[in-house]
């Protein structure tokens, strides 16, 4: 889901490429994740106590946003592209066709039309423009999607500082149909993202009414006092062929990472497309040979991601498994020099910093499994040494 998070990996890659994100764009630097379950909480901090994750608003931000304290991420990148020589045409594309030479031709709402050598399509999946490409006969079929729910709450910077701090809050709750939920503090707002099967009002009501969500939000918080809400689609299975002669589909319009790091996937696919166009050409063959492997690698990792989420789904069903997760993390915290196996896995699952394949490999390593099984066995008797139901605040460094 795109909650406006720039992952640790992307923050670092952009910095190395000379694109440091200014504090006028990053609305809140995130230095930790807090995992909330019905059997306790765990706080997982970034290595070296460094702020490595950026939370920001895309596009225009919440509907009731006042003033211009922060610049939107998209606007910032667009301004950089223009400064580097890009020409911005503000017009709504209503028609796509091919000229006699097979070059893409765009018709706009204002009656304009122009022909281009290459079309890099980065419309996301919520745009009606994708239909134009499906009808073009270039073999493009839109990605499979599911619905997510995003709500924005205005709380003000001071309140957010006091109650949510600089942590992203992730919820692993046994609520039917809820896959994953997160509360992301930003400048003056908290973005709440819910992902699940047929996300609807009843699911949202059950989520916001849970004691874990209420404990995370400030006292007196009214779940109905939202600034805005949307139910956008997200890409859960990428396009089979995200390219054609003179066309390339990047980010959500093509292939993206399952449930998280959508901005990171857009960066990876955009770079792969640019490298192909610059060094190998813009033919279908060039994209098949040089662009598609990056998409295939993301798609292959997503299949493993489904398996990783299946594991969390099982953990959500059985309280003793959730207690085991927290118990194992607690032990790691107590022995700081010891390998941070559970902490590292949790960190990478929530932050999107590592490929799902890498996370699964660590989850199924004999060392991880033996410790987890021991923690699970101990957690069958929760009174012996379990985190309290009101929440154990652990600070864990991966």
């Amino acid at each position, binding site marked *: 889901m795109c909650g406006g998070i720039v992952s640790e990996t992307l923050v670092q*890659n952009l910095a190395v490429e000379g694109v*440091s994100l200014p504090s006028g764009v990053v609305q809140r630097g995130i230095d930790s994740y807090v995992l909330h379950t019905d059997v306790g909480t765990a706080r997982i901090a970034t290595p070296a106590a460094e702020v490595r994750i950026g939370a920001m608003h895309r596009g225009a931000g919440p509907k009731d946003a006042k003033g211009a304290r922060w610049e939107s991420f998209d606007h910032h990148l667009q301004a950089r592209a223009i400064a580097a020589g890009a020409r911005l045409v503000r017009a709504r594309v209503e028609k796509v066709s091919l000229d006699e030479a097979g070059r893409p031709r765009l018709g706009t709402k204002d009656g304009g039309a122009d022909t281009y050598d290459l079309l890099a399509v980065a419309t996301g999946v919520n745009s009606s423009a994708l239909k134009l490409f499906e009808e073009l006969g270039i073999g493009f079929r839109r990605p499979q999607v599911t619905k997510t729910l995003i709500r924005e709450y205005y709380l003000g910077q001071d309140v957010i500082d006091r109650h949510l701090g600089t942590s992203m809050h992730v919820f692993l709750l046994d609520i039917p149909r809820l896959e994953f939920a997160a509360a992301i503090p930003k400048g003056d707002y908290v973005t709440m993202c819910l992902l699940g099967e047929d996300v609807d009002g009843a699911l949202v009501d059950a989520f916001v009414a849970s004691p874990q969500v209420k404990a995370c939000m400030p006292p007196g918080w009214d779940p109905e006092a939202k600034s805005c809400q949307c139910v956008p689609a997200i890409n859960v299975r990428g396009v089979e062929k995200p390219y054609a002669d003179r066309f390339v589909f990047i980010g959500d319009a093509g292939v993206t990472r399952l449930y998280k790091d959508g901005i990171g996937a857009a960066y990876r696919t955009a770079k792969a497309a640019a490298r192909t166009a610059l060094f190998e050409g813009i033919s279908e063959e060039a994209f098949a040979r040089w662009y598609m492997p990056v998409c295939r690698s993301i798609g292959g990792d997503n299949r493993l991601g489904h398996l990783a989420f299946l594991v969390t789904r099982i953990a959500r069903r059985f309280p003793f498994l959730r207690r085991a997760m927290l118990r194992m993390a607690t032990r790691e915290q107590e022995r700081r020099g010891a390998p941070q196996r559970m902490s590292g896995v949790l960190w990478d699952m929530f932050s999107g910093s590592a490929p799902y394949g890498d996370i699964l490999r660590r989850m199924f390593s004999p060392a991880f499994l033996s410790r987890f099984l021991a923690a699970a066995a101990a957690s069958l008797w929760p009174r012996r040494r379990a985190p309290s139901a009101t929440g154990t605040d652990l600070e864990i460094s991966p």
Partner: protein
Amino acid sequence: MTSPGELGRAYRDGDVLCRQGEPGDCLFVIQDGEFEVVREEGGKETVVRVARKDELLGEMAIFERAPRSATVRARGAGRALTLDKRNFLKRINEDPSLAFRIIQTMSQRIRELTVRSVELERKLAERPGAGR
């Protein structure tokens, strides 16, 4: 009101990012402020350069196993991002173009060093008694 959107780690005046002689296992990207690169020889310190926003520091550690060639410390308040060597090499392996800017930085520094070395040679040659 301070901005909650600052990335990296905060350093105060005089705080050390990395120390000469220690093993290098990361590189840094300056987010804000100034950091001085100091070389110590025979108990005397020489400021080799002052690095500013967006500059990369400690990049030699990514490609060499040698100890840090200089100490880097904050000159006033500053912020820097740390990039772990192992993870970064993995990312370069996936996307070699990530190394472009590091190569560019190294190239610029070689150019600067060439100019400085020529200046030093000239100053040495101009010293009284030189060349006799």
